[in-house]
């Protein structure tokens, strides 16, 4: 009975609502967006036709659906914040939003969401703004399939692509972020997901995470960012199926793990980074089934880390698989595949009979004395490494994988 009543009510809802659609454009009654917003009621739709709209700061303070047809351009004249959203239940879709102002005090963005819930920002081209999309004190927002392009030259002259601050339950899906300071920035953002985004050639980090607990990011691509990806001062982060590629430079990392705990790094691909994972003060982290290929350093573990477990990873063609700066090792390596492993497997169970020591003497030397990199691939160094492998004296002897795999895992 209850179900029937519910269905009946559902059927009646369209009869009860009187939502209108307001058209804006050259050929319509309203020529300006602001006029349309002024007359719209909660629940209405504003449909903006193709055109160029330069109206200063446009504020959406009603629960409306704000749609662009054929990518109308909204321009901030390099003075204003282009679009400010100050209401719940707003959808913004199909605009080209460009040229916001530059101000370091109030951080104008292409689209900025203030204290709102259930805001959807979909399919926009956010072009050459100070901040791209800025979310603050908001909940349950969806940011999907936007393209955010900026042309920052220096860190202090440009904002972040997708900047999220003090928010909860956000979904950042399928966006393409280029040329900003940080591609995606999370500070005090919880229970959120970042999925299938591409973050390329940003000046600082591709993804910047701080004080943001209980988040997850899946299937993203972070490529060629100034400093890679940083996950800091955070716990319970899940990082899965991402690709970290070609983050080059002395301070560039595939992932920088700084004071992070209880997290899970699974099935990611680290390709050709200077350092794939740099962990400092990281605790209780499981790093499982990842591919480390062609990196300078596969894993840099500082002595301040505890209970890192490296399980079932593939290490292929890295210059150094692992390096550390101390002698205290409280991390475990189990059943990884190391392409530098030279042991044998007599009983043919796929597990090498001789333990593997991933830490080479040369990596210890380079860690304490970076210019020693000059001697990389020199015959002298190979000799030293070989003798250290046979009789470990300088490298910590519990830095060891007791059951290295003979064949690489199919990941």
């Amino acid at each position, binding site marked *: 009975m209850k179900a029937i009543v519910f269905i009946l009510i559902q059927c009646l809802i369209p009869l009860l609502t009187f939502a209108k659609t307001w058209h804006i454009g050259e050929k319509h009654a309203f020529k300006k967006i602001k006029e349309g917003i002024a007359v719209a009621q909660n629940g209405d739709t504003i449909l903006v036709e193709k055109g160029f709209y330069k109206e200063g700061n446009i504020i959406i303070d009603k629960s409306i659906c704000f749609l662009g047809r054929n990518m109308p351009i909204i321009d901030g004249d390099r003075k204003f914040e282009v679009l400010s959203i100050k209401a719940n239940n707003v959808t913004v879709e199909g605009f080209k939003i460009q040229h916001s102002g530059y101000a370091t005090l109030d951080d104008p963005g292409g689209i900025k969401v203030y204290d709102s819930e259930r805001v959807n920002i979909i399919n926009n081209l956010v072009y050459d703004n100070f901040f791209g999309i800025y979310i603050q004190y908001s909940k349950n927002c969806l940011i999907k399939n936007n393209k955010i392009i900026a042309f920052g030259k220096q860190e202090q002259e440009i904002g972040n692509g997708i900047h999220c601050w003090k928010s909860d339950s956000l979904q950042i899906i399928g966006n393409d972020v280029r040329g900003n300071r940080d591609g995606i920035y999370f500070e005090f953002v919880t229970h959120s997901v970042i999925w299938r985004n591409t973050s390329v050639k940003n000046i600082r980090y591709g993804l910047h995470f701080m004080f943001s607990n209980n988040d997850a990011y899946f299937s993203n691509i972070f490529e060629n960012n100034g400093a890679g990806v940083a996950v800091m001062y955070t716990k319970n982060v899940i990082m899965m199926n991402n690709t970290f590629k070609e983050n*080059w430079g002395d301070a560039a990392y595939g992932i920088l793990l700084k004071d992070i705990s209880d997290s899970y790094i699974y099935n990611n691909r680290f390709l050709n980074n200077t350092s794939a994972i740099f962990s400092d003060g990281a605790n209780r982290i499981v790093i499982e089934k990842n591919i480390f290929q062609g990196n*300078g350093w596969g894993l840099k573990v500082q002595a301040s880390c505890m209970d890192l477990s490296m399980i079932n990873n593939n290490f292929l063609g890295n*210059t150094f698989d692992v390096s550390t700066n101390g002698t205290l090792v409280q991390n475990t390596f189990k059943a990884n595949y190391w392409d530098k492993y030279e042991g044998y497997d007599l009983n043919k169970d796929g597990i090498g009979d001789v333990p593997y020591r991933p830490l080479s003497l040369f990596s210890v030397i380079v860690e304490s004395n970076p210019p020693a*990199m000059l001697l990389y691939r020199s*015959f002298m160094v190979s000799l030293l490494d070989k003798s250290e492998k046979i009789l470990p004296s300088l490298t910590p002897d519990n830095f060891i994988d007791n059951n290295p795999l003979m064949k690489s895992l199919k990941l």
Partner: protein
Amino acid sequence: MSRIIRFIILDILKNRIVLVYTVLLAAFAWSAFSLEDNSSKGTLTLLNIILLIVPLVSILFTTIYIYNSAEFIELLVSQPIKRNKIWISLFAGLSLSFVIAFLLGVGIPLFVFADPNIAIMMTTIGSIITMVFIAIAFLSSILSRDKAKGIGVSISLWLYFALLFDGLVLFLLFQLAEYPIEKMMVFLAATSPIDLARILILLQLNVSALMGYTGAIFKDYFGSTLGLLVAFLLLLIWVIVPFLFSLKIFKHKDL
């Protein structure tokens, strides 16, 4: 002059060692590329060949060859030929045959398997390294009349450049770790042809670890076109200076 060069090359071919050297290099190179699953590992194996075997064979063979052809040189000197010409054609003949051996042995597989840029870089550097060690052999063999001593000097020089020099650099690095020594290191690297060759090739190979701090410094110095030119010039100086010294001694030497 070209007749003397031709004569020397024929003489070296008759000796068959260069042929064996070519076949050996080729065997190494082809197996390096076909055994390793990716070509970058193969190039690294070849890098070791260029840095160790090529210098050793060039310096040893040349030293022994010069001592053995002492009578031939005396015969030539008694003819109306300038001493300059004799010594230069001797150098040209040896260099040509060894560079051709290197190009046939290592160059062909490199161009077949490796990236063309890397192949060009490695063949050029390998050829220059061959000439560098032939020039050094000329100097060490002219310095003393005693064959055993000359060969000893050659081997020690090879040992020094291939092995001891790096140990020395490592030692210095540790002693001076407290100081900003990066620039000095770049200068130091330039004082050994093998190190110079190694760094030049490694920069071409785009090893990710070299993108770090130190790598950035090398890239600054050796990565730019100007740096590359300077590095090649330095390598050429390593050919020219020892040879000119030996030429100067040869011109006035009482044979």
